């Protein structure tokens, strides 16, 4: 790709970017939130037409009008948000869009057989007949990759593929990529995590603010240099954590059972949990083990089967979300586009949502105080480093990481008694992660209670005072952070209890 430029109104998302990928290479694309990574790759995949610049594949200049064109040249992309039809089977999702010209009939059995074959040769195991909505995220990701391989893609673009995976999922993804590389495929990996770059990349390209910062080869660079290229400066280490102050209990959960709305199984089973003022309790687990349902039940968007939830000794089990907000609950939901933001509203409106329902930001009784909304939004966007800091921009126009920052700004600025933060730094760049971590620690030091749900082990250990690991809806491991053992946590996440591990040391796995 040469001199690629793309403008969205006043924002220049890509500014004359050159990008080179060799055959059989795994190449990382690094950059802060809003650096233009997704935009650049969407251009390569034919989703967005560039304003300027050209794309050259195998020596010939090409123009992609649609993803189909890109796929015909062997280029395929897996999006930040998966593009799978949840009600379809794995096989149906994979073959969608590759109809053989000679028949109107869709032969499900043949499709399943073909998908099984591609899965076998590429080493990406899946059950072609499973419904997408029933399989865990890491398997869904495999399906996304299979989709591309099935259509003959030689170049795989993966947009933040590790953001939603636990350590085990990341490990198997990287192994999969290694196999594919041996078979002659190339991959472009968008990521924020420097450790991943050193783990898999042959080459790295760094973007900042829509501009190319540099291209590096593995071995000729180190994490510090990449971090500087990304952020334009160095990042200070987190402040030393003060000991938890050990205040009164703010959240008390007793015997909570929550059903999975789709499968009808118990996603959370008979769970007890307490979070005190001035304390951060971290919950870890591989995605799909009930953490989301726990957070949803606390937020009030999923009704529990049984059990009670007390906030400051008041029973909020049956309260609707708005009343919970009023009672001092702040929520950073995992799926920001679904629960956190209204994509078609402006940032000012999104930021004001919870205030309005509580009667704030109103003028003369019923009317909205629009100027007040704009002013406050501008201030929040500035403080939380959202780019662009324009209150009038629509939420859907922001990059993934910046959307997350808006949700965090809204929830944190209300100074809640209890903050439930589900994957709060998913998709954020290093600088933003650092900022959110500081905010969370700060809130704790001011006497707030925090329930942190995360599958980033580093984050879990850096922030939490106490740790619990969820597996199949129950806590299988609990510890005070100072005494916690990283290996034991990782194994508990994979459902291996310490005793089993002792018996078969080979089962222990590395933590990325």
């Amino acid at each position, binding site marked *: 790709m040469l001199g690629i430029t793309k403008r969205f109104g006043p924002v220049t998302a890509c500014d004359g970017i050159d990008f080179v990928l060799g055959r059989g290479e795994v190449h990382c694309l690094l950059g802060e939130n809003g650096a233009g990574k997704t935009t650049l790759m969407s251009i390569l995949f034919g*989703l967005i037409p560039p304003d300027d610049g050209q794309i050259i594949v195998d020596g010939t200049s090409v123009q992609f009008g649609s*993803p189909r064109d890109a796929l015909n040249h062997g280029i395929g992309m897996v*999006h930040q948000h998966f593009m799978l039809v*949840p009600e379809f089977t794995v096989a149906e999702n994979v073959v969608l869009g590759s109809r053989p010209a000679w028949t109107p009939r869709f032969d499900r059995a043949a499709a399943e057989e073909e998908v099984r074959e591609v899965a076998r040769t590429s080493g990406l195991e899946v059950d072609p007949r499973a419904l997408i909505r029933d399989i865990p995220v890491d398997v869904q990701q495999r399906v996304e990759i299979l989709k591309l391989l099935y259509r003959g893609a030689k170049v795989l673009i993966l947009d933040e593929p590790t953001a939603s995976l636990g350590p085990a999922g990341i490990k198997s993804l990287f192994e999969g990529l290694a196999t594919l590389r041996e078979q002659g495929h190339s991959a472009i990996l968008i990521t924020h995590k420097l450790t991943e770059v050193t783990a898999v990349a042959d080459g790295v390209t760094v973007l900042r603010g829509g501009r190319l910062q540099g291209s590096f080869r593995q071995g000729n660079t180190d994490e510090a240099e990449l971090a500087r290229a990304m952020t334009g400066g160095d990042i200070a280490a987190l402040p030393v954590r003060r000991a938890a102050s050990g205040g009164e209990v703010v959240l008390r959960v007793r015997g909570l059972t929550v059903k999975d709305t789709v499968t009808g199984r118990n996603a959370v089973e008979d769970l007890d949990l307490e979070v005190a003022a001035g304390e951060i309790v971290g919950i870890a687990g591989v995605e799909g083990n009930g953490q989301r349902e726990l957070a949803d039940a606390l937020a009030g968007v999923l009704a529990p089967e049984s059990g009670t939830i007390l906030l400051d000794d008041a029973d909020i089990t049956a309260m609707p979300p708005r009343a919970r907000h009023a009672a001092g609950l702040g929520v950073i939901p995992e799926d920001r586009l679904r629960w956190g933001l209204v994509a078609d509203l402006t940032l000012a409106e999104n930021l004001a949502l919870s205030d309005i329902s509580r009667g704030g930001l109103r003028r003369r009784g019923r009317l909205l105080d629009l100027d007040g909304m704009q002013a406050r939004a501008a201030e929040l966007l500035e403080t939380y480093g959202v780019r662009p800091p324009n209150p009038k921009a629509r939420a859907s126009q922001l990059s993934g990481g910046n959307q997350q920052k808006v949700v965090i700004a809204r929830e944190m600025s209300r100074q809640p008694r209890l903050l439930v933060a589900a994957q709060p730094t998913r998709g954020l760049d290093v600088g933003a992660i650092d900022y959110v971590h500081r905010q969370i620690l700060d809130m704790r030091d001011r006497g707030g209670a925090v329930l942190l749900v995360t599958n980033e082990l580093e984050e879990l250990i850096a922030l939490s005072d106490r740790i619990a690991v969820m597996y199949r809806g129950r806590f299988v491991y609990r510890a005070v952070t100072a005494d916690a053992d990283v290996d034991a946590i990782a194994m508990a996440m994979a459902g291996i209890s310490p005793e089993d591990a002792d018996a078969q040391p080979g089962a222990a796995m590395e933590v990325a």
Partner: protein
Amino acid sequence: MNSTIVISVFATGIALMTPVLWAALGEAIAERAGVLNIGIEGVMLFGALVCAWAIREGAGIWTGLLLAIPVGAVLGLALAYLWVSRGADQIVSGIIGATSLLFDEFLKGVGVVTSLDEISIPLLSDIPWIGEIVFQQPSVTYLALLAAPLVFLLLNRTWFGLYIRSAGEKPRATETAGLSVPALRYTAVVVSCVLICFGGASLIAITSGGFVTNVTAGQGFVALAIVVLGRWNPFLIVGGALLFGVSQALQFQAQSLGFLSSLPPEAWLSLPYLVTIVAVVVAKSSRYPNACGVPFTPAGAAR
């Protein structure tokens, strides 16, 4: 009730379900593709009008029925333009579409008295009970019963069906697979409107009346409910349509037999509609296709 009455109620019920069955099958196709076609009542009315007009002009019932096909396609194109290309809010403009109801003011008095004859299927119609109920029906009814499995095959066993279902569940995924969501939705809406319009025409063809003001009498909206009741599955939709048809037949019987004659006729008239509403409410909640009613903007056209 003696057996003749039972047979007559069910036989009439099957005939009377014909228009809603056509309409509901058509609607299911549109909704599976993600378009909530609320113009259904208006489209049926057009079908009825065209058919009645053709008959009055002496062209015959079948000409009227066949004429409804191109008319439905044109209406479908117009509605698809509104919903798919203009991204108009499907629910709001659907209601506007339904106000083509107003048209019928101009068309009053297109009177016809003929209707399609029943066709007895040899042998099958001799089966006791079933024969009399199912196999002595007008041809459009047989066609409708045949259309149900065909629509099922279209939706579940063809590539086109797979495509439009994906466009109704997660259009962004359809697009990334390299398909055109607008083109799929256009096709679905046109096919849908052809069936619906034909259903409207069949209303004239099976009842010996004429085109009177509001001849469809809300049957389009009934079809909308039947789609939900039938969970977008053509076979279950036949069941839902049958429920409506039979309660309509029951309503005629009850009135003519004069039992419970103290009840005002309006109460009897509303019976089939009440039955349908109750059935929808009682049937455990069913799930609309995820993207049903949500306009879709292709990514290239400025997200």
